[in-house]
Structures are given as C-alpha cells and as structure tokens.
C-alpha cells in the first residue's frame, strides 16, 4: 500500500497514453495520406497492373500470350509492385531525449515517438514491414505490429545519451534513426557505417529542443546532463552562446557529411515546429529511398 500508493493510478495513466499516442499518430498519418495515393508502379506481386507492348530486351517468357492473341502486337503483362520493404526504426530512448525547455513544449522523446509511430502507420498501411533495430522487434506487417511498436516505443532507456542500435539489420532494407545526436559521435559514425555496409539506406532525423538551438542562458550556471553524469560550470553563460552554437553547427555538418557519404538523408526538426512538416519530409524521404 504505502510504498506505491498511486501505482494503480499511474499504471492507468500510462496505459491511457498508449492509445492516445496511437490516435495522435493515426491522425497525423491521415493528414499525409490525403495527399498521396499509394504506390502505383509495376513490380513483383500478385495483382494485375497493366499490359505494355513488348520492348526489345524482354524475354519471350514475359509475353502474355492470351492478350497477344487478341491482336497483332505482343504484350507483356505487368503486375503491381508488391514486394514489401523492411524498415527498421531506431528511436533514441536515452535520458537526454526527455528534455523540454518549457512546460508548453513536448519533450524530444515525445516528438520522436509521435513521428516514428506516424511514419510506421503510413508504412504499414502501404504494405511495408516495420520493426525496430536490434533483436527485440523484427519488422513485421499488419495492424498488430502497430500495437507492438507503440508498446515498444513507450520504453524509457536508462542511459544519459543514446547509442544507435545497428545490430540485426536486414541487408538492403531501410532504416530511420531519430535522436538528438548529442551523444558520442563516433558511435553514430560506427553504427551508420555498419548499416551502410549491409546496404541499408535510410533517414536521420535530428530532433532538438529550441533551447538547444538558441542557448538562451545567462549568469553563473552549472549545466548538468539529464542523468547528472556530465556537468559544466560557467560564470557567464551568455558569453558561451556563440561558441556553443558553432559547435552545434559543426555537429550538424558532420551528420550531414556522414549521411551523404553513406547515402542516407539528414534533416533536423525543432520541437516547437509543426509536427506535420516533419512527418511530410520523413514520408517523402522514405519514399525516395528506392
């Protein structure tokens, strides 16, 4: 009783968030679906897509004799592209993501989860298989996977800064990394290189709090990381602003360079910006991946 007097209440509150996040993600996903029309292209699949005249290079096996017999020309029967791609997500769950500079702003983790879930919904509806990097939740399709993803995304990590999980990536699949990328850069580089070695391409989205971009601090301050493992003391914080921002730009430049080198795409998003724009960019970036 007394050790956890509010346990039931808290559990209910936490459980209540799950559908809420899902609902938000769903709503968000719908805003994108309205403007897009699925994947209309030929490829491997079961459903009929179109007949096209035979072109040089087509083997005889590809000619659809039944259609060709109705006319003088030969036609090739094409089916709609139905090969499902696998998409692996890595959403940073470290303590640094649970930061919001103002009570009206969502935490970075909240924004990252929302975006991840929304894009997952879009992808799964488009027939893709979505999962998490690492062995915990391999990519699967279907609505049930949305629930499993939601549940997995709600977990909070214990570390101060996130390290990307690049194990168990399916070769030549796609990946989405969302983080603040403030942690050890070498680890990112290593993970991305490892992914690129397997032919995985994908998208890096850096989510930042506005205060992390602006650095609006003044006076004598001791800055602590969210886990209080790292701290820095300054006598006059406002003096540090320029140098901090140049370091942040360096980090972003490095990320962009790394992305270019590995064939990934990079973008940043601030938590005070509209979430739709980020999702739209994400969606198109995922589309372009092919």
């Amino acid at each position: 009783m007394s050790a956890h007097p509010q346990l039931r209440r808290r559990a209910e509150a936490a459980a209540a968030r799950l559908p809420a996040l899902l609902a938000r993600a769903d709503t968000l996903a719908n805003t994108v679906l309205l403007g897009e029309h699925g994947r209309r292209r030929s490829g491997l699949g079961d459903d009929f897509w179109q007949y096209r005249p035979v072109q040089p290079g087509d083997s005889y096996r590809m000619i659809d004799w039944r259609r060709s017999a109705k006319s003088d020309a030969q036609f090739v029967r094409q089916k709609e592209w139905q090969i499902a791609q696998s998409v692996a997500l890595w959403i940073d769950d470290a303590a640094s993501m649970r930061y919001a500079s103002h009570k009206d702003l969502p935490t970075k983790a909240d924004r990252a989860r929302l975006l991840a879930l929304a894009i997952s919904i879009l992808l799964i509806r488009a027939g893709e298989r979505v999962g998490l990097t690492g062995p915990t939740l391999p990519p699967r399709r279907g609505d049930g996977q949305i629930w499993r993803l939601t549940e997995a995304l709600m977990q909070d990590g214990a570390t101060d800064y996130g390290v990307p999980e690049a194990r168990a990536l399916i070769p030549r699949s796609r990946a989405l990394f969302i983080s603040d990328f403030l942690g050890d850069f070498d680890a990112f580089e290593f993970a991305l290189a490892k992914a690129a070695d397997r032919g995985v391409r994908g998208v890096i989205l850096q989510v930042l709090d506005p205060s992390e971009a602006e650095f609006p601090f003044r006076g004598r301050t001791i800055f602590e990381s969210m886990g209080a493992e790292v701290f820095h003391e300054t006598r006059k914080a406002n003096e540090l602003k320029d140098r901090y921002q140049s370091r942040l730009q360096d980090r972003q430049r490095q990320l962009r360079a790394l992305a270019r080198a590995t064939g990934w795409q990079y973008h940043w998003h601030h938590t005070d910006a509209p979430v739709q724009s980020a999702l739209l960019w994400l969606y198109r970036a995922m589309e372009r991946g092919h």
Partner: protein
Amino acid sequence: MLGLPLAFSAPWVLTALIALPILWFLLRAVPPAPIRKRFPGVVLLLGLQDDESTMDRTPWWLLLMRMLLIAAVIIGFSGPVLQPDGAAPSGRPLLVVMDGDWAAGPGWARDRAAIEDALAEAERTGRTAAMLRLTAPEPAQFLPAGVWVRRVAEFAPLPWTPSETGIATAISALPDDDFDTLWVSSGLAYVGRTDMLAALEARGQVAVLQRAAPLLALDDVSLADGVLTLSTQKLGPGAAAQTVSVIGEDPNGAEVALAQAEVQWGAARAEQSEVQFALPAEMRGRISHFRIDGVSSAGARFMTDDRIRRREVALVEVRGDREGLELLSPTHFLRQALVESAEVIDGAIPDIIPANPDVIILADVAALAPSEEARLLEWTENGGLLLRFAGPQMAASDLSRAEENPLMPVRLRAGGRTVGGAMSWGEPKALAPFSPQGPFAGLKVPDDVRVTAQVLAQPDPNLADRVLAELNDGTPLVTRKPVGAGQVVLFHVTANAEWSGLPLSGLFVQMLDRLAVLSAGSADAAEIMAGTIWTPIEVLDGLGRIQDGQTLTGVEGAALLSAPLSAALRPGVYRDGGKTAARNVLRKGEKITLFDWPAHVAISEGAAATAKELKPYFLSLALVLLLADTLAALILAGRLSNWRTALIAFALVAAPSPGDAQATGTLPGTDEIALAYVLTGNAALDDLSYAGLYGLSDMLYMRTSVEPVNPVGVDLAQDELAFYPFLYWPISPDQSLPSDTAYEKLNDYLRSGGLILFDTRDADVAELGASSPNGRKLQAIARALDIPALEPVPGDHVLTRTFYLLQDFPGRYAGRGVWVEAAPPDAEQIEGMPFRNLNDGVTPVVIGGNDWAAAWATDTRGTHLYPVGRGSTGARQRELAYRFGINLIMHVLTGNYKSDQVHVPALLDRLGQ
C-alpha cells in the same frame, strides 16, 4: 556625539565596525552562487573556458549595499538615541506619583506611555525610580528604573479617589532621602492633595503631568413621567460634545445600545448637562447601564438598578364566580398590559400591603373594610400609587357620594351615565386631546376609542385641578389626587372593554406608563437598606470596564448608600435577594471639582519631547537593504530572467498578505482514502496512532480492495473532517477538551456518517466506565458529543461479519466491553433468519479500551512495534485485532451491506415462484 544630540546605550557594539573592511575583501572574493540547470546540450559545452575578463566578482554597488546593511545592523544594535533637549538630569532618584483614580482612566494610555518614557529615560541616565499610586498607596521602593518599566501596567487607575487616610500613610511612608517627583495627576480635587504636594516638594523638584482634556462623568439618572433624565458633569476648560449610549440587552440577549443621544457641554470650567431618553417601559426594563461613548473611565459609566426597572403592581378585584369569562374579567386587560414590564401580585388587600408594592390597582372595588381602608391609606401616604377603576359596582355604591372618600380623587354622582346605548340618547363619546401640562401631554388620542359609560364626578371647586384627562364633552375620564407622599388615580371607566374601548387601545398602556404604574423611582430609603448585606454582581474597574464581582465580599446596605468608594466598596451592581442596587462613582448631587495647582508648580500636558530610540529605524533600514540585496543577487545570478518575475517576486516579498498561509494549505486525502486519527497533543500517543493506522492500512491493502494512503493526523480545531470516513481517537488523561467549534464539527461529522473509534487503552486494568482516568476523560470529552444510546456489540451486529466472522474484538488487550449504537428496540429476529433485522447506517461511535492501535502498529517495514500476548496465542490475538480493524473499516465503507443479506432468502423465495 559629533555635534549631534546622539547617544548610544551600548557603545561598545560600535567596535564591530572595524570588521567592515575585512568583510569588504571577503565579500569581493566570493562570487554569487551558481544555479544548476538540466541541459542535454552540455556535452557540446565541455572544454569551453570562460574568458578571464568575465565577471567573477561581486559588483561594487552590491558590495556597498551589503556594507551599509552590516553597518546599519551594528549601529542599530548599539542602541542610538536621539535627545533633542539636552536637559541635564539631576541624578536624583525619580518617584512617579499617580493619582490613579477613576478620573485618570481616559488619559491612562497616554499617561502610561509618558511614565514609560520617563522611566526609560531614568534608566538611561542610571537613576533609580519608584512608583506610588495614591488610590492604593504602598511604601515607595527605589529600584533600577528598568524594573518599573515592565510593571507600569500594574498601576492602572482604580475606580475611586484617594482617601485622606491613604494620603496620610503615603506621606508617612515617603523615604527621607531627596528625590525628584513626576506627579501624573488626574486633576480631581481631593482632601490631602496639598499635603502630599508639600511633602513631595520638601524632598525635591515636582513636575506635574496633567492632561488638558475636560473630564466627563455621569452622576444621576432619574425617571419622571416615563422619561429617563440623565445628568452629566463636565470639569475643565473647553466645550465638549459626546454621545451617550443607553446599554442593555436586545431581545436576543446581546448587549446593544438601546438608545443614543448627543450631549453638549459649554465652555465653562464646570458644566452640567442633562439628556433625556423617552423609552418604552419594556425597553427601560432591559437597561443595564449608561455610558459616555469613547471615554474609558468608571465615571463615564452609570450602572442602573431597580429604580428604573420592573415594579411590583398589586391587582385587587372583586371576588365573583365569573368562571370562564376571562375577557370580561375587570383585570384581564390590565394584566396583559402589565405582565410585560412589571411584577404582578394578586391577592386580597391585607395580604398584599405587607409586600409593599409600588402600585395597587383596585378594579371596580367599591366596598373596603375599615381596617383595609386604613392600611391602604397609610400605604398611599407613604408614597404608594393607588389606581382605581370604576365599574358597575362602584356606580351602584355610595362610595364618595356625600363627601369625598380619602381614597377617591373626586366625589361621584349617583348611578353614573350611559351614552349612545340602546336606551339612551347621544353618541358614544370620544376622548378630548390631553392637556399639555398634564402627565399625558403629547400622547396621541386614537380616533376609534369610544366611551359608552362612565361614572360622573361631582363638580366640586377643586375638580378642575384633579382632572388629568376628559372626554370631548368635558366630563372627566381620569382624575388624580395627592395623598401624603403618594397619590390616588381614578379611571372613570372600567378596566375591561365593557364601558369603553380604552383598554383595548395602545393608549391605555401609554397612560399607565405615564402614571408611573409601569416604572417609577421610589427613593432608596436608608431604613430599607439598613441591616442588609448586598453582594456585588458586576463591578467597574478604573477604566470603566465591567468585571465580574461575584468573588468580592458583600457590602452593608448603609455603606452601599453612603460610604466613600474604596477597595472594599467598588462601583457596580449589588444584589440582595431579588432586589438590585447600583453604586456609581458619583452619588446623586455629588459635585466634583478640579484641583488648582499652586502657581509655582510646573504643569505639562505630557507632550514633552522625549528621547527617541533610533534602533528600529536602523534595523528597518537593514531589512530593506537585505531585501534589495536578495533581489539584486537573484538578478545577477540570472534567476530572475525578466523584469516581470522580478516585480512579482518583489511584490510577494514586500507585501506578504495574511491569506498566503491559507492558500498553501492543500487538502490531502481528498482523492484517496486515508484513515485518520485525532491529534491529542501527546507526541508519543500520536506516533502510536499513526503507526497503528499504518499497520492497519497495510493489512487492508494486502487483504482487501481498500487501498488507503498513509494515515493522517487531524487537528480538530482546524482540519476539515469530511474527507475522513474513520477517525481513531485514543484517550489519554492529559489531553485537552475540544473547543466549541470543534465540537460542532464533530457532531456534524457524526451526523453525516463518520465513525469515531474511541479507545481508552486501559482494558488491562479497568472496565469501561468512570473507574479509570482515561474513562473519566472519555466521559468529559463525549459529554458534548451527539452520541446515541449505546449497547455492547450484540452477537448479530453487522460488525461481526462485514469481512471476517468475529465474536471478539481484542486489541493489545482482550477486554470485553466494546460498545456501539444500540439496535432499535423493535428489532426482531425473523423466524429462520440467523440475524435480527437491524438498523440502517453505520454506528457513529465504537467505544472500547483494547488499545487497538498498539496491536496494529507496525513500522514502514512491517515490523510489529508492540508485543501482543505470548507465543501463538499472542499471534492469534494480533490477527484477530487486525480482523477487527478490517471489519470496522469495511463497516464504515459499506455500511449495513452485509446486514442486507438477511433478505436474501426472502428474495430467492420470491424469485422461485
């Protein structure tokens, strides 16, 4: 000092100023404290160095402010004093002489401040001092002046004047050494003041402090013709105007001002003024005293007694067997008019005259025995008021026919007359307006009062003088004749509505009032008072405040009338049997005069410039600087990021409103269930209660779906009880009784479904009852509680089966007596049912002495804190104690739910059809 009239009471403290430069360097070296901020971007900051030029030292203006702050504190504590007049003190001891009489009351607050200033001054200059109050003289005792400063309040004015003997003892007790005198005078002249002055002047300088405001006093109240006349005195130069209030109880029993009037006094040195109050007799009966508003003096309050209060009125009527004809009774309307405001006595004349009533009313009594007539005459001559009413019997008799009866104001014609009847001419007669000189002057005559019959007066030469009221045809209606010190009044109509409508009208009561039937001042005769002992009920103190006098000794009647006031005879209200008498500061006709000081005595009005302490100013300055420093430090540290928060913070710091404390008090336990216990003020007992309820809460959490949060201690005086369904109240002999408001709350709580478990915790030594101190305490506490009839828990009480099946309710002790609300007497066991059909609802109290909390008590790790029994029986007993607790909480939360199951067979039966 330094050319300024400045002195320090503790100059050595100033040496601390030397430390200021050291402080300067220390403060300069220490930068403002940093704030800690969570910021994930910190990794990007690692390794960045601050510029050397950035600020790491406190700015000079902040340093200067802090220096000023410290300096202000040091100077403040060194006790700076500003002395505008450099008058050299004589160095001799100081004697403060106070008249201390009632006239000093209004100026006491100012006098007191002046005396304290003088004593403080004497203390600074190292003089000893003594105080002497002439109304209660004690030998002067010269002590360090600081001792007296704290005792000035003991020398408040007393409600009498200094007596001659008192002055003589004071003079003889004066020390022989030289001293200076400060005489705080009320200005009143009394015997011995000149002697005292001479004695004091022989020993040193005498300075007199006397306020210039005029002295106001009330000296008498008289009642004439229903109007209260209050006479007042004013002494001293200057005109004055004050409100005089008549204080008494309103119909609800609260003390209010029944009437108020403005009194003006002229500018002459001694002025008298009168003010009149015309109050209905009923209201007059409620007056407790008169007061000059805003003057705190025993002389400005006038206590009243029987003289303006209820009077004894005897009703005498003809005996007749007019059974049941209540409204036709000659005295019915009289009784109705009198009963509100007077004491009514019934009886025959021989019986009532010894009671010496103020008024005797004869309603249509014609024939009196000669002896009765003689005694009645004697009584009237001694000041009685004999009021007679006419009637058929009087009209038919020969009373006062041929010659005037001594007990009749006029001679009567035979037979009377009837007007406006079936067998007579004319219209019924109305009343003529009252003459402006008579006692009824100013009363309004209602139009609807008609007289149809009357007895007629013979037109004698003296008739015109005796008529008080007449009809509009000039025939007398009311006549009056003085008899000795008293008077005889005759109404020429009946006292009932038979002959006229007069008794039915409001005018009748007003006329009786004017005739002083309802109240009048009968002089306090000395012989009545002789030999009686009067006990004080309420007495006045020197400031005119009313105090309980029941603890004082009684006073002889003669002394009450004439002896001067003293400690043994205080002004106030005294009682002897049913009579009350008031003694006031001034007796009727007593004149007071002002004392004329000889020309050589210097008189000041107390506004003398005294030394001014600067300590508070310096400390306030330090406080303001501290506030500014705090704000500046916050701003420098970047904690107040914008000016708006700074402004809000400043407003909060600068103007803390009393509501702040209220707003922060949240109400815990409003969204979760919490078991509560009453805070008894005994810390060990409160801890036990907490631990006990903690253990029980744990057990509930484990075993049931009730999941309480931590127990809550409830302060009955302040906390809201409505949030707690269950209250554990351990009894200890030393806890205090709840206040009245707390009792109100508790009764509300019990009535609205709360349950209190009273635990006397002494079942090992005593049965429930008054046999132990805890039991007696419980009785005292529960006396004011709304507790229904109780009975020991019956075997089929719902408490025995709300969760567990129980028959015993042991705690740490396994006593027998656990009491709950009694079942209704008509509860019966239905055939075939295991239980009786019992009352609804929850028993509001459970009373026992088994010390349950001790059996339940655990610490946060679940370890039991108190041993229960021995071995496995002990463990069983503790288990049963927990089961009782669980049953009890279930009973509180589910009420008679388990009791309802007795209906199950009936319901099943019905469904089975």
